[in-house]
């Protein structure tokens, strides 16, 4: 009888410890429920999501305009050809297969940036809604990443020296603010890495087409559902 009581007691204790451990682990884990995020984080999320939604609305409006043009053209003849040409220009430029001309931000970089730092700079420009980016004459496609080569950084097989220029087409004010904000990427890199980064806005930037072959060979087009 006493052995049974002891077993039951031990079971109860083990069960309670298990429950408490789970509760402890949950309380130290990242908050995955939106409502449990800190207020500051929620505010940042609202800003970011609002900006991204605004971009999506613009993109949707443009797409609907393309559709309207096709319908007007009756999907045949010279007009439809011109709409498709315009679509091709846009898609090749978006993917990095064609050059883009416009306004944006130029970063003059000098110093010992490692691959992580250069990739972080590129990511920050993308996050600030850069529409096309080049490092010197190397167009940054989705597959372009900086890696440490034998003697220097390398992107798409091309060496990048210790002094280089990053050109980004996009909202000049938005890009500049994102790069130069207190505690932002430039401040961080200049603090932790021996580098100087000078940002200037420009209304005459030419981002070239990629010279890399980015046509997939292992990945095949799948039929969309």
């Amino acid at each position, binding site marked *: 009888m006493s052995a049974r009581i002891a077993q039951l*007691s031990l079971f*109860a*204790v083990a069960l309670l410890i298990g429950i*408490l451990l789970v*509760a*402890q*682990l949950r*309380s*130290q884990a*990242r908050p995955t429920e939106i409502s449990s*995020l800190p*207020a500051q*984080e*929620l*505010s940042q*999320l*609202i800003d*970011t*999501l*609002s900006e991204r939604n605004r971009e*999506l609305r*613009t*993109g*949707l409006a*443009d797409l609907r305009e*393309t*559709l309207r043009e*096709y319908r007007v053209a009756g*999907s*045949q003849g010279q007009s439809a*050809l011109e709409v*498709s*040409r315009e679509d*091709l220009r846009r*898609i090749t*430029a*978006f*993917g990095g*297969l*064609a050059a883009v001309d*416009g*306004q944006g931000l130029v970063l003059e970089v000098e110093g010992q940036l490692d*691959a992580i730092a250069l990739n972080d700079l590129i990511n*920050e420009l993308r996050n600030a*809604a850069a*529409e*096309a980016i080049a490092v010197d004459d190397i167009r940054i496609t*989705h597959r372009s*990443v900086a890696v*440490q080569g034998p003697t220097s950084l390398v992107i798409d097989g091309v060496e990048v020296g210790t002094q280089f220029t990053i050109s980004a*087409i*996009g*909202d000049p004010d938005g890009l500049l603010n994102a790069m130069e904000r207190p505690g932002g990427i430039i401040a961080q890199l200049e603090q932790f890495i021996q580098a100087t980064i000078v940002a200037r806005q420009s209304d005459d930037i030419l981002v070239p087409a990629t010279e890399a072959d980015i*046509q*997939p060979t*292992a*990945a*095949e*087009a*799948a039929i969309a559902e």
Partner: protein
Amino acid sequence: MSLSAVRRPRPSPRATWGITIAGALGIIGFVGAAQWNSSVERQAFTSSAQQVLADQVLELEAEQQQLREDIAEAEAEVRRIQEDATSSSAALAALNAQLEAARLAAGLTPVSGSGVVVEISDSNRIVPPGENPASYIVLVDDLRDIVTALWASGAEAIEIDGERLVASSSIYGVGASVLVNTSFLSPPFRIEAVGADGLLDRFQSHPAFTGRVAQRIEFFGLEYAAAATDGLELPAFVGTTRFRWGVPVAEVTP
């Protein structure tokens, strides 16, 4: 008075067991109550101060979902029109073949193939006193390192939790939250990459992987698994591909 009359009775082994377990239960109960109270307090604070902000986030996410569905639908309609027109003109057929190739290269077409699946999630270990809890969760840098290593190892297409990576994609951290393209993602993160044979070996031996994230997996116990897989299917990118601040410079023929 006899000696036996003043000697205190020794507790039986059963009573000792009972006292020990009662003590343990008391401590557990105290800790449990503290845990429960802190949860209740946090819940109350959440409902009053943060709920308005959280509701806004959820509304924006719902709006975004609708926008993405509308964009995908409009894109599909554009492609249907282009495919229909192909049969009516040789010039259009040639042009639309170029369009298909460009879409495939840019990540605007769903793709299939063999490659690698990587899953990474927060550590299950209890954070030791004095250590930073952030070390035990997947950080945005971990995802960037994995993606960098995959691209550098020859991946041709990558998605994170259904978000296809394209030239404009950023992997962005907002506190402990991760945004990829326009989507708010949470762990476990599943990364799928299509690429030539040997992608897994190249990826796991690439310095972009071994240099930082592999060490965090080992030191902090981040949950990690990777496998070579056939028959992967990656979705197309859904989002805007328009230029607002630049003009494409391209000669298009025919």
